[in-house]
């Protein structure tokens, strides 16, 4: 069974700081996805990466996929209070629609 481990589990920073969160898999990713979940809401897809070494940018968010496709990072530049939330990485399991999630990184950005 594939396990996704995210670190750190909790991060509290001041507005304007940079941060990086990580996601590591016990096996090669099929199709890695990053989500953000705000309190009282469901997860919202931020990005999907499939190619080893791939880098994708979404405004102040930079997503990197490891060459071996077993690890990924999410870097946020100049964090804002609106970035506060739970960041989840997920992989699609085999030939199904099932998503396997990591336990998440809770980010708090203080004004």
């Amino acid at each position, binding site marked *: 069974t594939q396990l996704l481990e995210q670190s750190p589990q909790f991060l509290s920073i001041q507005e304007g700081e940079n941060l990086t969160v990580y996601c590591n898999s016990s096996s090669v990713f099929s199709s890695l996805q990053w989500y953000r979940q705000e309190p009282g809401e*469901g997860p919202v*897809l931020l990005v999907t990466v499939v190619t080893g070494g791939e880098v994708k940018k979404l405004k102040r968010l930079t997503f990197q996929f490891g060459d071996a496709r077993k690890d990924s990072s999410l870097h946020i530049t100049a964090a804002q209070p609106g970035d506060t939330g739970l960041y989840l990485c997920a992989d699609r399991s085999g030939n*199904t*629609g099932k998503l396997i999630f990591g336990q998440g990184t809770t980010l708090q950005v203080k004004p």
Partner: protein
Amino acid sequence: DAGVTQSPTHLIKTRGQHVTLRCSPISGHKSVSWYQQVLGQGPQFIFQYYEKEERGRGNFPDRFSARQFPNYSSELNVNALLLGDSALYLCASSLGLLVETQYFGPGTRLLVL
């Protein structure tokens, strides 16, 4: 267009009771998946339904069951509730069985006392 909707938003039950949670997918989406999210953890897959048939099941006891209706809406049923069933239950819809993007609803917060 409306997103995924779930009802009720919150629910309080006692141990041993039964609960039914409902989900309406985005219009045109034929696949619905259910996830359980315990506080402080990532969502865990419970079921996937596509074209009214079960296409995937997670590691949950038989107390959990689900079905999908001809209009593609879905129900999740949990019997003989335990304290450990307290969680946020999320529904996600997608166009097809293997489509990459799943859209999540806001969830139903279940508290079992």
